[in-house]
């Protein structure tokens, strides 16, 4: 076997592992339910884990990462068995699909993975403490309830208040256990710590430990985002498979998992797909921003390195909470969590609220750090209008994330309290107002879509001149349009509520404010087209994704006004047309630019570049597949397909379109798999790229890759315009002036 290349061995093992795990899963389903079912979620999940483990084993032998996957599988099984035992003790009957068992499988599996990969590290310690904290707090509440004569147990082992306090304490224990707050506690006790710690770990292990280096944190964010994108994408594939044909075939009424039947699972997957993707977008853009902004500014680090690390680490327990919501009964409200439905969904709803609340803090604190860094840490000569354009986008994004995020946190808290203490904020029976929730919710969640896309549009503007070899057209207009989008974005939220029953006189002003957003967005498009005009366009993978992003975002932009216009929106609201529209904006504004940014800055992080052929396959597979998916969505949406439903009438004749869309969805998934393979494979085996491979004027490309810990050895001064590409005379953007003093203050 030695002569076979690792990749081939890996993929062979992948296939064998998938088949074996699928068969094992089917066997288990037979044991539990007594019937052979080929289309069942359990074998699918088994095959996912089995194939990944087998791939790693085949490709790299019993390496740390393989060990992690093996531990993940074993940990899940042990957790499952333990949960099953506890459930048997408490309920008195053996229930194969007990949520408790799935919950323990999830938590133990995660923890075991990080333990297996590198023993005790910030991630595994944090997760162990999160489990301990959750259980301790839940048991604490249960004991008190039992002492008060209330029921202490529920269908999910503990009662709802116990789970809520448990989830919350789990987050605090995670932060304490992982060491993310160690230095602050030292400061509180009056012990000074050095501004930067010596790096104790080298290679990939440093990513599993607390690090204050913004580049490490940026990569931690990015990899977490890729993980969440995969999870959210897997959820999408599951419910897309069910939608491929009318009637219920896959998520059927008689199947059960996590205490839910098929359609309930559909609701949970659909809801979580939304929120997990949103969190992954926030983390992904935080990753790019964290990695790139200090480099663009010429700073040694972010303004608050500890806060930066804290903001990343708090997103880990947040992600765990979101996944916990799936196994604790799930929820059926969609990502919006509107009451009154969210006021009576299962416990999973509360975990979802807690998870979003926690992830919100990550976003708020990251944004704060970002603004301060840009205001205080710029290099000499970098005046406002000589900043790289991506920095403007990051600032505009941060303004929204810093302020508006509090509103979604507050709205979700209020529903939590309504459920826990009977506080009647949104309960009409007590004089409450459900529409108030929608106002609070959308006051964040509409500007939030600009949080998702503005950094992406910034990436497009940043990369376009490099690959068109021309100055960026209308730099100041682009900079201002980012701010304008952010500010106008605060005034448009009620366009999500045209059909909600809010006062009718609010409709027209919100329609016009929404249409106003098209102006600054149009400015950006005009600039991009004018930048491309007569440029010497050169299209390696990052540029392909930039161009793809522009086209897809244009489609998203053009399908916006019909939704913003009251008369048409009343027809389109809650249809698949909306789904198509926002997938366009998010793919064009985030997914494509995110991939572009990774392909572009990957050499800066690793000193190697990603495989160009695989990159092009990724692009040429994903783009057409995405168009098939989104045009399908909009077509059936216009014809009346409702969103968020598990089944549809065969007489509507949507079966064929749905099938094509499902195929498109799977093709996108395959292309992303290729990307992930390319990403991890190139870290070790990629072609060396230590110089300025894109021939960029930007400061970070003027020094060799990868960047050392404290960035630039020499300070630089800005002496020219950032995007004067292809002009005669050959001006410079930055000039290195002096060695950076006090590297370790």
């Amino acid at each position, binding site marked *: 076997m030695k002569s076979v290349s690792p990749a081939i061995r890996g993929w062979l093992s992948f296939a064998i592992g998938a088949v074996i795990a699928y068969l094992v899963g089917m066997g288990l389903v037979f044991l539990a339910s007594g019937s052979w079912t080929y289309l069942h979620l359990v074998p699918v999940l088994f095959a996912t884990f089995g194939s990944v483990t087998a791939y790693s084993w085949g490709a790299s032998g019993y390496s740390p990462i393989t060990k992690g996957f093996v531990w993940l599988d074993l940990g899940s099984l042990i957790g499952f068995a333990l949960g099953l035992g506890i459930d048997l003790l408490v309920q008195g009957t053996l229930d194969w699909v007990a949520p408790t068992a799935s919950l323990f499988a999830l938590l133990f599996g995660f923890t075991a993975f990080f333990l297996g990969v590198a023993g005790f590290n910030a991630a595994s310690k944090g997760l162990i403490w999160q489990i301990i904290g959750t259980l301790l707090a839940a048991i604490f509440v249960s004991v008190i309830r039992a002492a008060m004569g209330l029921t202490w147990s529920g269908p999910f082992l503990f009662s709802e208040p116990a789970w809520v306090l448990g989830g919350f304490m789990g987050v605090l224990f995670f932060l304490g256990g992982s060491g993310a707050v160690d230095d602050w506690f030292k400061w509180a006790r009056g012990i000074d710590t050095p501004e930067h710690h010596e790096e104790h770990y080298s290679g990939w292990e440093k990513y599993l430990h607390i690090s204050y280096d913004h580049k490490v944190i940026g990569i931690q964010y990015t990899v977490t985002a890729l993980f969440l994108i995969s999870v959210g994408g897997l959820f999408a594939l599951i419910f897309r498979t069910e939608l491929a044909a009318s009637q219920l075939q896959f998520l059927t009424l008689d199947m059960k998992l996590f205490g839910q039947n098929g359609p309930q699972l559909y609701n949970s997957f659909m809801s979580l797909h939304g929120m997990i993707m949103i969190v992954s977008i926030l983390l992904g853009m935080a990753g790019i921003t964290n990695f790139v902004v200090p480099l663009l500014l010429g700073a040694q680090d972010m303004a608050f390195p500890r806060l930066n690390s804290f903001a990343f680490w708090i997103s880990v327990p947040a992600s765990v909470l979101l996944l916990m919501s799936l196994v604790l009964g799930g929820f059926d409200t969609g990502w919006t969590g509107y009451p009154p439905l969210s006021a009576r969904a299962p416990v999973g709803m509360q975990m979802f609220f807690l998870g979003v609340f926690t992830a919100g803090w990550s976003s708020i604190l990251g944004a704060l750090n970002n603004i301060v860094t840009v*205001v205080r840490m710029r290099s000499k000569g970098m005046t406002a209008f000589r900043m790289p354009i991506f920095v403007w986008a990051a600032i505009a994004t941060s303004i929204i994330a810093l302020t508006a995020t509090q509103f979604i*946190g507050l709205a979700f808290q209020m529903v939590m309290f309504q459920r826990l203490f009977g506080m009647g904020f949104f309960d009409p029976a007590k004089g409450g107002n459900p529409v108030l929730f929608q106002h609070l919710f959308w006051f964040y969640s509409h500007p939030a879509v600009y949080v998702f896309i503005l950094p992406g549009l910034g990436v497009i503007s940043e990369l376009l001149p490099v690959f068109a070899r021309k100055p960026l057209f209308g730099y100041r207009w682009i900079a201002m349009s980012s701010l304008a989008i952010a500010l106008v974005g605060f005034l448009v939220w009620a366009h999500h509520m045209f059909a909600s029953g809010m006062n009718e006189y609010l409709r027209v002003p919100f329609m016009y404010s929404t249409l106003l957003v098209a102006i600054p967005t149009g400015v950006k498009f005009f600039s991009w087209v004018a930048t491309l005009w007569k440029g010497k366009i050169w299209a390696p993978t990052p540029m392909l994704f930039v161009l793809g992003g522009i086209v897809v975002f244009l489609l998203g932009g053009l399908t916006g006004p019909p939704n913003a216009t009251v008369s048409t929106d009343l027809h389109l609201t809650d249809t698949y047309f909306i789904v198509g529209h926002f997938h366009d904006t998010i793919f064009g504004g985030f997914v494509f630019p995110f991939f572009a940014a990774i392909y572009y800055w990957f050499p800066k992080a690793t000193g190697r570049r990603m495989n160009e052929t695989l990159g092009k396959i990724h692009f040429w597979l994903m783009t057409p597949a995405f168009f098939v998916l989104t045009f399908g969505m909009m077509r059936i949406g216009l014809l009346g397909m409702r969103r968020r439903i598990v089944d549809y009438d065969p007489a509507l004749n949507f079966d064929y379109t749905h099938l094509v869309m499902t195929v498109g969805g799977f093709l996108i998934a395959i292309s992303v798999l290729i990307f992930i393979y390319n990403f991890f494979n190139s870290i070790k085996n990629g072609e060396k790229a230590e110089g300025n491979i894109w021939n960029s004027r930007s400061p970070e490309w003027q020094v060799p890759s990868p960047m050392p810990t404290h960035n630039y050895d020499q300070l630089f001064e800005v002496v020219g315009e950032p995007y004067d590409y292809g002009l005669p005379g050959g001006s410079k953007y930055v000039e290195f002036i002096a060695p950076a003093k006090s590297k370790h203050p």
Partner: protein
Amino acid sequence: MSHNQDKSSAYAQGVLIFVYLTVLTALEYFVAITFSAVSILVLIAVIKAALVMYYYMHIYKLNEDSADDIHSYAYKTGTNRLGLWLFLLSDAFVFAGLLTTRINLLGLTRPHLNQLLGVAVTAVLLISSFFMNRGETAMAHGDKKGFITNALITFVLGLGFLLGVVAVEWPAAAAEGLTASSGTAGAVFYMMTGMHAFHVFTGLIFLLVIINNARKDIYSEEKHWGVEAVTVYWHFVDLVWIFFYPALYLIGKLL
């Protein structure tokens, strides 16, 4: 600014601002019981907030030129200051959201609450802000003993406010039938006072931290960012109450 002033005139300024705030609070109460004009109450609250932000929280320091050397304590303090104010801006949105909720659900009505208790806790919090300002002024002029004394007084008053709300006002309101689950008025009352009390509670912890660190002699006339941060945070908590007090106790007709 504190360095341009000598210690006694800085103290005198603190007293003067406190007198202004007291007079305005009394005026607020008078307006509420006589002709109950919401616009005047809002105006008074805004004036009080502006006084606190300028003279107690020293917002103008954001605009101060700090040292050129990016690694100096002065430059880092400027950076920290901006970070703290951005955090407060973010936090202010939580309270703005609560005020929005109150206006949406209760409009121009208010729950039946113990007015005397309301005035009492408001006065206690206002006085605590005065002593906090005195403590910071003392530290800025190198008087560590004065700082510790004033910070301890602030702590005691802050604890008094917290207990006054959570241990006296809450049970009293509940005894009158205003419970968290009794209706929107109860929900709004407990949510607003609860969220504010949580901030007071964290402020008390921070106060203990700086008092303890001052006893260890960590702060100096030039280097006392920790003290400044907690001071600004404490005044911010007071600032929130400047809006919450009229919103809960003064505005609108009794339900």
